[in-house]
């Protein structure tokens, strides 16, 4: 079972004070730690678990700048055999479908039984690439996948629906699965392992290599156009209780008492 895992490097923003860059179309990434997108990490782990049980090779693929090779090396350290970076200035600024278009082209000359992606990127939150990719490759798909069971020529998957419901499906191979977080427990890639992997080759694929017209990908090939970024209004609802932990807690306790919770 040969698996392609499509991953993305994203900035870690959970705790950071974000700044919108000049021009209003991006954030200032300087100082932000870069990492593998969370659900992609689960997708990689799922691929590793499947190949551990059913043999096969893993190709790790990303569309991104040179810094994202760190994610590829980390993936190779964990067990991916081949790494591909879809890299071309032409891909810059592409929306999810433009990205899927480039990845689909990169997958053309790769032999695979299964393509795994994370179900959502934590930066743009688009939740589109995996499904779009399947459509472009003309193979079936499922996303929000929290269970995968490999059968003969097909997989049985569980999709996580709202309200804690699981939708079970069987899907013929090859297919694309968008993996949801929590499906497994991602392993660790040691620094030694990453260092060893850094000696291995990463295949680069440009738009030209894949026969893609620059106008069909990147910003030029995107149906949506980013107009501007703004910060959402915050704190309008909450009455912030000030003071030391003890003081603030005291105020809250009074409120709760007043409302009859204490």
């Amino acid at each position, binding site marked *: 079972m040969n698996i392609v895992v499509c991953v993305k490097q994203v900035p*870690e923003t959970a705790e950071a*004070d974000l700044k919108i860059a000049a021009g209003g179309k991006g954030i200032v990434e300087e100082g932000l*730690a870069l990492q593998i997108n969370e659900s992609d990490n689960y997708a990689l782990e799922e691929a590793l678990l499947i190949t551990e049980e059913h043999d096969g090779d893993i190709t790790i693929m990303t569309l991104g700048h040179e810094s994202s090779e760190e994610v590829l090396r980390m993936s190779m350290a964990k067990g991916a055999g081949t790494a591909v970076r879809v890299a071309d200035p032409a891909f810059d600024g592409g929306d999810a479908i433009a990205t899927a278009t480039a990845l689909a082209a990169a997958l053309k000359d790769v032999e695979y039984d299964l393509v795994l992606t994370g179900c959502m990127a934590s930066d743009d939150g688009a939740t589109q690439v995996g499904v779009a990719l399947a459509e472009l490759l003309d193979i079936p798909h499922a996303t929000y996948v929290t269970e995968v069971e490999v059968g003969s020529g097909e997989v049985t998957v569980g999709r996580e629906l709202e309200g804690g419901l699981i939708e079970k499906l069987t899907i013929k191979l090859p297919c694309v699965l968008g993996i949801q977080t929590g499906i497994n427990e*991602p392993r*660790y890639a*040691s*620094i030694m392992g990453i260092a060893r992997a850094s000696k291995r080759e990463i295949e680069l694929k440009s738009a030209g290599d894949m026969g893609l017209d620059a106008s069909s990908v990147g910003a030029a090939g995107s149906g949506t156009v980013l107009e501007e970024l703004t910060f959402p209004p915050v704190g309008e609802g909450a009455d912030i209780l000030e003071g030391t932990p003890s003081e603030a807690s005291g105020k809250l306790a009074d409120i709760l008492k007043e409302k009859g919770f204490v």
Partner: protein
Amino acid sequence: MAVSLQEKYELLGCIQCGRCTAGCPVSMRTYLNVRRVVYDGMTGVGPTDAKGRPEAWNCTTCSNCTERCPKGVKPMELIIGLRSAAIEKGRIEPTIRDALESTFKHGNPWGRIRDKRTEWADELSVPVAAEGEAVPFLFYVGCTPAYDPRAQSIAKALVALFAAAGVEYSTLGTDESCCGNEIRRMGEDGLFEMLVEGNRELFGGHEVGTIVTASPHCMNTFKNEYGEPTPDVVHYSQLLASLLEAGKLTFKGKVEKKVTFHDACFLGKHNGIYDEPREVLEQIPGVTFEEMDRSRERALCCEGGGGRMWLEATEERGERLAETRVKDAVELGADYLVTACPFCLMTLEDAVKTSGNEGKIEIIDLAELAAMAL
């Protein structure tokens, strides 16, 4: 071909006397049997990584086993080696994984971003060295005192003490990175080496002369594992003792409390620093100091070292040592159980709650106590 554990850790000298297990603080409350681990390594029958031997994660790296081995075998290194092997396979507890990944990304194991490393000093005036500026005397804060809300008060207390004693120092601000002591003990050799390289470069760039650390863990690795040449390294208790002796630091206040002292493994057993913290304690006006039965080299480990801050013991079977420790101190009638290590502080404080001794005793860091007497 991989080198066998027997060769790599020179296990054949072992005479199976069991002093390692007998001295292991967790041997009676977890299923870690150090002698058995050595035996299996010696005979080549046991698991070769901590995945197959999860109790290896119970080791607190207090070093009793290694310090006391009559034959010079280093069981603690073997256990760290088992962890390393598990790490190489990527098969480790998620909490350890997250701590390691965080250290790689942010330079601290607490999952906090680098930008917030100086948050503790926000309302204080703490000097931060400019890039390339020489730092003859560096206050290395360390990840836990920098980020942990409880331990931050150690850093704050030290800053107050430095000010009172007229110590000219500087910090590295957000450039400061994890020392790697716990990382090495979790078995992540590559990451440790990366940190060593980075820190040595950082220290070199600032021509650091002497380092004072808030945590004994940082001191230990700088002093013993960074190789030559590194700056002189002292733990703050050593600095305070010498400042007191030189008359540069004087206490104007009084702390009318009965206190006892918990020796941190990385201060005591690893580095033989037993006297200085006591010298500081005894000079604080009003303090009545009494030793616990198990003190100095017989001090009980708090179980906070060796990566255990990021991991629960597997298959516990006895009382937490920190709880035993708290009970011992309560029995002694101490108002304060003083320690000089942020990990001890946190584990002991937790144990005060879990052992139902809230209100009976307080855990306090030596720096906090000293600052109270300024």
